[in-house]
């Protein structure tokens, strides 16, 4: 996992720089997402790992699949990955690219787990609170997890803000 990130980082940085130059972050984001989706498909991943299929055959196959979905630079990137035998990195590259993109836009991806579903107003107010804490725009993903018992658990990258009843009970258990 950590090794993958190390390998994927130069690719992601390159893609991100290119996207900034040509002002095409959105297209790149789409390109990468599509590639990641294709390559994570089980039947495709079997083909990729098949030593009997040569690089050129693989390229033709993948380009056929992606026809119309990715632009010229996207297919160049795909060629490069095949050339370097780094197709497996595509998910990691996409992840890192998205964090760079979010950082650049001044927003942050936040996973919020809550014991009970938010009402519209509470969601709005929670969003503003988070924006204040992080000082960035918030892309909130909300999931309901009843095992929290009450409260919310916020996850932004490595950072975790645990305001759930479950977390507090765990703290109490440890203190005793």
């Amino acid at each position, binding site marked *: 996992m950590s090794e993958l990130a190390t390998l994927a980082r130069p690719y992601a940085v390159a893609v991100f720089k290119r996207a900034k130059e040509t002002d095409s972050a959105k297209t790149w984001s789409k390109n990468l997402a599509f590639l990641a989706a294709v390559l994570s498909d089980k039947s495709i991943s079997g083909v990729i790992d098949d030593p009997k299929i040569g690089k050129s055959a693989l390229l033709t196959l993948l380009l056929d699949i992606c026809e119309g979905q990715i632009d010229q630079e996207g297919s160049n990137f795909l060629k490069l990955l095949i050339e370097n035998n780094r197709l497996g990195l595509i998910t990691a590259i996409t992840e890192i690219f998205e964090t760079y993109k979010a950082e650049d836009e001044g927003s942050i991806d936040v996973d919020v787990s809550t014991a009970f579903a938010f009402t519209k107003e509470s969601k709005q107010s929670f969003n503003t609170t988070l924006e204040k804490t992080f000082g960035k725009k918030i892309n909130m993903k909300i999931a309901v997890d009843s095992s929290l018992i009450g409260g919310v658990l916020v996850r932004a990258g490595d950072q975790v803000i645990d*305001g759930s009843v479950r977390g507090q009970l765990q*703290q109490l258990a440890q203190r*005793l």
Partner: protein
Amino acid sequence: MQLNPSEISDLIKKKIENFDLSTQVHTEGTVVSVTDGIVRVHGLSQAMQGEMLEFPGNTFGMALNLERDSVGAVVLGSYQHISEGDTVKCTGKILEVPVGEALLGRVVDALGNPIDGKGAIDTTETSPVEKIAPGVIARQSVDEPVQLGLKSIDAMIPVGRGQRELIIGDRQTGKTAIAIDAIINQKGTGIKCIYVAIGQKRSSVANVVRKLEEHGALAHTIIVVASASESAALQFIAPYTGCTMGEYFRDKGEDALIIYDDLTKQAWAYRQVSLLLRRPPGREAYPGDVFYLHSRLLERASRINAAEVEKLTGGRVKGKTGSLTALPIIETQGGDVSAFVPTNVISITDGQIFLESNLFNSGIRPAVNAGLSVSRVGGAAQTKIIKKLGGGTRLDLAQYRELAAFAQFASDLDESTRKQIERGQRVTELMKQNQYSPMSVAQMAISLFAANEGFLDTVEVNKVLDFEAALQSYMKSEHTELMTNINTTGDFSSDISKGMRSAIETFVKTHSW
């Protein structure tokens, strides 16, 4: 002890009452791999070097390798229940251990938990394990002695409060014995002792504890144990733990003595951890920072001035200096002091006590090699009377060593050479001392005086120790006043000299041995 249930529920109730419901903010990571106590964690971008990490199951680890996407950590304790995918939390704290008076007389592990079955330790304070040593401004030079209670060491290789004196020698040369005698001799002096056992058999540690208990020396001693069966990480941390406990006393204007038994094993443990963390190996496969491992530890043994003590105690203690004296132990292989770790530690410390197995086997115990042993700062701290009388001993032994090769041609030698050899033989004999029988300053002074003034010259070599024993018991019963006088003042005046001379003269005339 019978547990009182209501008491416990009350305690729990109180804890629940006082429990503050805070929202926890922390950074999290995921375990990527667990190999031989080394855990690689993905994430934890905020982790500090040396930070405590919390693993599931109330296990803690220490972050040692900070990389771009991952953190390499050692688990402190058992790691069998940790698996890939577990979450790891940052605690935001550097590893801390309990410190305080309550630890005296106890046996604890490398994290400060009691392991002697005497119940919980009532300490309120904790202190980080890794601290920066006091700076230049905070220090004071070494000028007070630590009496180890061994004639040969106190006379020739004196140790001062705040000094670092290495005890080095092969296996089975009596390194630990010197350390234990030193602890026993601190009874009633106010010097607190810390004995750190690293990578030793639990049975040996139990032996040490029992011996200290027998001689009433456990009450002023803390014993820190990271036995051979414990993880390498704990063995590598144990000396720092002990040092932190000793610094507590130093920083409040008291004196402490710490013994690291032994740093060779700590270096081995650190080598193991480093290699598993994939740090590049260097000489003898030790990592590049093995010197720093020992230098930063031994640099914390120091004497600090009264101003610093006042600052550290917030003005509660005034006009008192604090000291932490260190006696690190290094085990050599076949007398090879030029191996990596021994040379490092020799260069860090303020002198060394060199023990030799052939001396030990020929019955000279403690097996101190007087020629190779030195104390670079202890001379300034030595008790006056011992300094005065011990100088002759050192010289006698040095001259004897030069001539010792001719000893077998005794009949063909000129008068002065023969005399020197005989004096040397007697002094060598006099330097022998039994284990667990440390001597007071006055006792040493009498023995050294007898040797210096030639009273031993008429005694047969194999009778020297009998002579000494008889003399000591005579002095104890007949000249108590003189002995207390020497012990309290420590000065060598003409009165004392006369007193000793006349006492020994009467003894020689009236006693047999």
